């Protein structure tokens, strides 16, 4: 088989894996938008906040220690213990639930029935607030996140493809793990939405707020639930991306990778986020491989948006989005 075909196959596989990571971020946006019509600008910062909290808990760091020391003249930084990764993930999930409750109680709860643009603006404020709180709570240093996920080339795939084609494909173990976790996450969300009381209530709210209220569903509870789930998804995304690059401010910028996925897949569809992620991942990687050299390289960031816009020309609501028809 010609080398270029083998390289293209390798690029496609890696694009699929990258797409799963994009989809992980997009999923958080979809959950909140679907249930409450809010485009959550703070989703990327939530991933940063979740990852920083996770590392802070694992390392036994005292939250707000710099603030405490500056105020009271103390010199405390750590509790002196280390928390195992699994327990730290559970505790961080708890923190994200508390954050969800706070968001609903102090921000969104006051903005019920407001225009979508006002809700969107509120999430911009929330993003800046969370950025500041993350820094204040855990510091600005780059942290190493090690929850035991494997990284590096997958030897089995390398050896298998080498035997088959005479060229070993590179697939990162972390990407494989991310794909498995994303698949489990989506399956779990589908089961939750289809077969649990709260999940059905969540779907009812997503379909029609007023109808859901009329049958006794608590909007407040559902929104706290949705923000909590989005917080958990942000934690998973934060773990995956944070393991690759360390936990640092730039983690909040991964939201930029989710936007074309949402445009393509639709803002209201969980399968849309997954399929959109895969199309963007493969599309941008193949374009960079085939034509990037002719255009000076680094085409991925803008090509993802071009690809999404091309899809929008054909399906303005996205691949799986709901077609909204408003009649006068």
């Amino acid at each position: 088989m010609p080398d270029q075909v083998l390289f293209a196959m390798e690029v496609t596989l890696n694009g699929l894996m990258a797409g799963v990571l994009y989809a992980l971020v997009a999923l958080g946006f979809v959950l909140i938008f679907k249930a409450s019509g809010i485009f959550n600008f703070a989703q990327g910062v939530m991933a940063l906040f979740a990852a920083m909290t996770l590392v802070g808990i694992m390392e036994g760091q005292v939250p707000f220690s710099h603030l405490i020391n500056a105020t009271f003249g103390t010199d405390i930084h750590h509790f002196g213990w280390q928390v195992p990764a699994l327990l730290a993930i559970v505790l961080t999930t708890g923190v994200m639930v508390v954050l969800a409750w706070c968001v609903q109680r102090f921000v969104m709860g006051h903005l019920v029935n407001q225009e979508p643009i006002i809700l969107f603006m509120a999430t911009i404020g929330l993003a800046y607030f969370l950025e500041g709180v993350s820094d204040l709570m855990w510091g600005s240093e780059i942290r190493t996140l090690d929850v035991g996920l494997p990284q590096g080339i997958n030897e089995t795939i390398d050896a298998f493809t080498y035997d088959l084609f005479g060229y070993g494909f590179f697939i990162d173990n972390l990407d494989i793990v991310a794909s498995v976790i994303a698949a489990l996450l989506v399956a779990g969300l589908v089961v939750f939405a289809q077969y649990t009381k709260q999940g059905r209530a969540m779907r009812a709210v997503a379909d029609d707020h007023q109808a859901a209220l009329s049958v006794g569903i608590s909007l407040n509870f559902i929104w706290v639930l949705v923000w909590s789930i989005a917080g958990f998804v942000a934690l998973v995304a934060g773990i995956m991306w944070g393991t690759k690059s360390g936990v640092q401010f730039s983690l909040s910028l991964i939201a930029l990778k989710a936007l074309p996925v949402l445009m393509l897949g639709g803002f209201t569809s969980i399968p849309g986020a997954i399929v959109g992620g895969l199309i963007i991942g493969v599309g941008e990687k193949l374009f960079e491989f085939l034509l990037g050299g002719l255009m000076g390289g680094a085409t991925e960031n803008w090509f993802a948006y071009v690809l999404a816009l091309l899809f929008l020309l054909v399906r303005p609501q996205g691949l799986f989005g709901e077609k909204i028809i408003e009649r006068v």
Partner: protein
Amino acid sequence: MTKKLTTLALGVMLAAGPAMADLVFPSLSYRTGPYAAGGIQFADGYADYLTLLNERDGGIGGEKIRMPECETAYNTEKGVECYESTKGEGALVYQPLSTGIAYQLIPKMNVDKIPMLTSGLGRTSSKNGDVFPYVFNFPANYWDGASVIVKHILDQEGGDLNGKKIALVHHNSAYGKEPIRTLEALSEKHGFDLTTIPVDHPGQEQKSQWLQVRRERPDYVILYGWGVMTPVAVQEAANIRFPMDKMIGIWWSGSENDVLSAGAAADGYKAVAFHNVGSDFPIYDDLKEYVYDAGKAAGNGDQHGTTIYSRGLYAAMLVAEAARTAQEMHDTKAINAQQMRDGMEALEITEERMTELGMPKFGPEFKVTCRNHGGEGYAAVTQWDAKAKQWTLITDFIQSDQDIVQPLIEEDSAAYAAENNIPSHCD
């Protein structure tokens, strides 16, 4: 009544206004935003050195130092706002740790007649003081960095790079593209093949770039990254099993922030530096006594000895020495910005002086002149020891290939002078 109000207003102005006799070194720092990790370290080092001079020596030449700090978040617009809001305080010199801010400030410096030091960053051709009288970039610039890296590779390859492949993985920005011309000229001179591989900001996702490296199998990778781009690049290089000792970063890709997250995989990674690293210098004894233990350390006081903290210390030492030179030249303690510029242009850093300052072999020796605002272009190679978690200098300071770098500087600065009708400063 009017008289009372006027007196009161005057009193408030006098109380609130800056003490003009102080030596003012504004710090355009970034302790927030995507590049905060490096920004904090530099700002802390810069502040701690100046605090040491105040606490130990009563300032410079007996004149106290004041350092108004302004947060830029590495944002060019905010950086310019910071400059505008602090220049009226009697600012003597600016050191924006950002090429973007530096580019915006270059034309302003000529108008406001305040000097700027952009060590290892900014517009490379501002080394030509004949065209850029208020901009200095000693002791080394981006092109020096690229040339020193190639010299090190030459050394590793026994002096012959014919047929070798070198890939430049760079931030897709003005900063990241800076070394391309130099490397192209060096590639012609030494016969190596150069491939340039850009990475878009912020550089969180680099799979395509490293698959390309894996396919093309370069012998060496030169890395011009900043922020999250570098740790991701180091991790991806480790993932494809690229030998770490054949990957060499510029100084903005050579701090602890860039390698710690990759853990043991980053062991052996190299980067050039225009100053020494670590805390094994006598100055740290004084810093401990007068700054750290006295509770006067900047920030959280937890960055001492890191690479970029050392860069901040070094940057502060350079401007303090320039201020001292200016005081001697103009026979006054309370120098102004123009006198400070003269001091920078007459600055000479010798090993003897660095030893006196408690910083022996901390940086290269150099002498600034009217036409040469950038020193002699010396940098050393450092290497990361993942087990000890420290950078170590593994070479002496090496001079860049001036036969390649200097003509490029002349050409670029001449074009800038023609474009902006800038008369010769030195003739």
